[in-house]
């Protein structure tokens, strides 16, 4: 989603992006001309007249679970976005009984928060396990 028209999206996809990704962009490229959607999401820059790099993860109930906003020169990390979706899917499947600690990856240690875990996370999880230091 950017303030460009759907027509410019098409040309960008056809002349450039389809040369990076076979078959072109697989998802919808939406136009926020005028920035009305970006304004509501808090990512529209009135000065620059564009939407800055905002990313929102919205769950199946339409609730925002995560958001990240970057200034223009730094690109996103799609692997991190996918990791967060996988983590939220695990939490949702558990009915909210499980939580994924810092640095969690699919298959990694999951915590079951309860009264016995208070003050005892150190027995269950160590930063060395995921960060190596």
């Amino acid at each position, binding site marked *: 989603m950017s303030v460009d028209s759907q027509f410019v999206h098409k040309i960008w996809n056809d002349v450039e992006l389809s040369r990076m990704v076979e078959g072109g962009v697989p998802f*919808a490229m939406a136009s926020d001309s005028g920035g009305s959607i970006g304004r509501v999401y808090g990512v529209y820059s009135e000065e620059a007249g564009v939407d800055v790099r905002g990313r929102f993860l919205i769950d199946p109930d*339409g*609730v925002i679970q995560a958001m990240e906003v970057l200034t223009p020169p730094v690109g996103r990390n799609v692997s991190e976005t996918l990791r967060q979706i996988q983590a939220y899917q695990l939490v949702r499947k558990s009915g909210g009984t499980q939580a994924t600690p810092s640095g969690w990856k699919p298959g990694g240690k999951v915590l079951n928060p309860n009264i016995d875990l208070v003050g005892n996370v150190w027995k269950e999880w160590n930063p060395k396990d995921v960060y190596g230091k």
Partner: protein
Amino acid sequence: MTDKKAGCSVPSAKVANSDSEGLPVQTDMVKEEKSMTVMVGKKAPDFTAPAFHKGEFKQVKLSDHLGKWVALCFYPGDFTFV
């Protein structure tokens, strides 16, 4: 959502429940209700927007995707570098 032909008159992006005629005169209470601060744990504001998708122009609506996870990404502009 019906697909629209690409023509000179095309629908523009629109936030659900917003007034397309611009900011209406309203009381402070209503303003507060309409400010819709985006926050984790809160409902994502619904919207419709014209889009290009797999070779076609169409309208997309956020609430059409209820039941699925959605990654909504904003970016400064087409043909920017990163």
